[in-house]
């Protein structure tokens, strides 16, 4: 059995769903952030899989992945800054405490 595009895509899907569940179920803000990272990684796997298995996407896939990684780094920095701020204000990292915007 040859490893093909489908395998990587399913792997990405699993990672994606795991990240989603992680985001939805963690109450710790940093946990939510980890879920986000998982989702991004899943996307990256898809990009690179397409780059590998589709000639016309070879360079683009890698470029997009690179950009996603960099954006993820930026996002993590900002997110952690927000978390720290949040912690300063609420003395907690429980995202359920951040319900000021509740309807």
């Amino acid at each position: 059995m040859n490893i093909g595009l489908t395998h990587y895509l399913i792997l990405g899907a699993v990672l994606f769903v795991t990240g989603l569940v992680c985001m939805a179920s963690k109450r710790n803000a940093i946990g939510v952030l980890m879920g986000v990272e998982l989702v991004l990684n899943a996307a990256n796997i898809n990009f690179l899989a397409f780059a590998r298995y589709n000639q016309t996407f070879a360079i683009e896939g890698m470029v997009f992945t690179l950009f996603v990684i960099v954006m993820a780094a930026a996002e993590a920095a900002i997110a952690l800054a927000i978390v720290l701020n949040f912690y300063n204000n609420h003395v907690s990292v429980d995202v359920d405490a951040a319900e000021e915007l509740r309807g």
Partner: protein
Amino acid sequence: MSNPGFLYVIATLLPLASFLLLFAGGKRWPGRVGGLIAVGGIGGAFVCSLIGFLLFLGAMPKHGHHDDHAKGAAVQATTPAAGSGTQPTATKPAEPGKEEAAATKPAEAAHGHGHAHAHADDHDHDSFAWKGSLSWVALTGFGSDDGGLDIRLGYYIDSLGAIMFLMVTFIASLIHIFALGYMSEELQPTVEDHQAHVTRKGRFPRFFMWFSLFCFSMLNLVLADNLFQVFVSWELVGVCSFGLIGFYYERQSATNAANKAFITNRVGDAGFIIGLLILWTQCGTLTFHTTTETVTTRSGRQVEKVKQLGIFDALRAPEHDTHKDPIKEHGQFVRVRHITEDDDHLLQMNPAGDHVVIWDKATLNGHFHGPDEKGRFEAYLSDRDGGHGHGMKTMPYWMLVLAGVGIFLGCVGKSAQFPLQVWLPDAMEGPTPVSALVHSATMVAAGVYLVGRVYPLFAPEVLLTIAYVGAITAFIAATIAIVQTDIKKVLAYSTVSQLGFMMLGLGVGGWVYGLFHLLTHAFFKALLFLGSGSVIHGCHHEQEMTKMGGLHAKMRTTSLTMLVGVLAICGTPLFSGWYSKDGIIVAALSFASLNPEHMALFLLPLIGAGITAFYMFRLWFVTFTPRDEHVYEHAHESPRVMTVPLIILAVCSVVVAWGPRPWDVQGSALEHFVHHSQPESLKVDTGINLNTAVLQAEPDSARAENVIANTFARDSWLHPLTVKLGWGPHDLAGLLALVVAGLGVLLSFAVYYWRVFDPQETRERFPWAYDLFQNKWHFDALYSALLVRPTLVVGYWCKAFDQKVIDGLIHGLAHLTVLVSRFDGKVDNGLVDGLVNLTGRVVFGVGDWLKGAQTGLIRNYVLFMAVAAVGIFAVVSYVLAMAG
């Protein structure tokens, strides 16, 4: 000083400076300080003018009529005029010149003037002047071929300007000094005005503020080198006269008089503006004289090029080679007509052509080589060659006439000529120094001065108009003056009359005499007014002559100086008026002798001169000689500050026109000086050269003997007089004028001194004449009926229309709007607000219900998104499956 013209600029600016000083701080300075500032300003201007005048004398070209030459020459030259016995010798050599004149005559026949004499009198007389200017307003793209309108501020000082400056500043200084005394009442903190029955503050500085501005305006007018600057000063003069005539503005009569003066002047100024616009649109320039600059051409030659085109040179033919050129005369209007049959842009010279050639920069700079031998050249067609062709620009002849009449209309208003003379007597409402200033040196002089200044613009038709207007004015005003009893009004009408004389002189070609009379008249009229002021001052502001009498005993200085003035205005020999008035009469006689159909132009002023002598002596007798019925008892002599100017002016009134030989009526130095500025076009237009200048300049030349200055023209009906008796115009006219004036004086003596006739009786015998004169020939009534009342009626109609119709409409609309608004308010409050509130409530309810979904928990949102993704996908795939 490289250019002494700046002296005159300074002289102009000094009164302006004093005006500004007084304007800024006049009220704060105590006592006479304000007046002294004004006196200082005008005095400084006088000093500058004097220095400038002396420099001008020194700088004038020597080959002209300089005194050194004139002294020796005048003896020879004036001999034929003075001594009647030698006339034939002067007549005979004149023949060849007249032959020549006759040969060229037909060309100018249409004008009604001969020009041959001027042709003989071709002494090189390039009028000497100091010039300078700076750009003031420059508008590009306004039509003219020079690329736009360039209005400049400049000065142009020729001999006329210089002498005018000297006269204006001198007289104005004296009047200022006089006013220091006359206006001393205004120094009190409160002044009681007996006529208006009010008590008010003294206005001493204010008076001198207006005075300074008045002087500045007049000086600037004299200084100007272009029509626009003249116009600006012109209006300033009008404003100042308004302010000064209405100085006692508490008095209804004063404000009325101020308004009248102002409005009447506006009528004239409308004509002035039209003239300006025509000239600008047609010629593209308003500057008087052409400025040239030296340009080095490509071949290295130095060539004179026109820098700024002057308006005179634009209209008058330039210098040219007369042998080749069909244009005969330098300085003539070149009239042309279009040759339409072969080519629509060909022009042909034609003495009766309906267009006048305008010489623009390019043609003056030599791009145009003149017409061919048949007198044809190409017309200037801007749309064909872009305005840079070598053709000619033309303007309709009637437009030129219109422009001239328009400008003259301005002068009519300013100089109170018929039919706009009505304002000047009313202007007596102002303080007497104002009257003196207005009547002698400034306002009314401005009109005459302007006519003299722009003389080359006037077509012969215009000149004729000027002459007639002047003659009529002179006569009418003189008749009115007979019956006036207010001392100042008599003087006012005499001024109007004298101005008429000046205009007449200008109109008939006696350019020099018109302006000469302006100058001499300024002195004695100032003297007379100041004298009357002194009288009024001495009689505690009593102006009615009937209430005076026998004042000679109490006011000896005033009386004697006024007698000098009266003698001068009557034209008594050796007094200044003699020289100038004689010149005007001579000019009129010469003109009439050539054009018998215009005989009235000679008779009217002649009779006017007689009447003048009569009423002026009447004034003096009534005022100063004792009478039975009433003697003014409380009169007293005026203070020194008032009498000293009187004495100075009296002396001036006598000697100002004297020449080296005072008994020679043609030998006035002042006249010769003015003669320097005589426009050359005069020779072409009128052909009458009444001056002896050439004889003085070239006494020995044969040509000098050709000059027929002292002979009647050959085709004149008075020519036989010359042939038989050897009498020239001067002899005849001088004799007639003296006789007429003498008759007037005699009559005056008879009526008012010897009491041979009773004036009351005469009045009753000729009631219609008395009525006519007393009511000023019914001009006021005429204007009132023709203009004022209809205007009032129309005004009432407009007012009624405004109040009834327009206001009613607006009020109705307002009511309607209020009604509609009430209804609209109900709709708004009920229906619209209800709908809006309903929407709001519904949205609020839905939102309230939906807000439960916003938990504020990120985790939930993530779930929602996932659920939504799944849901959307499910729906989409279901739809796709259904679709196919």
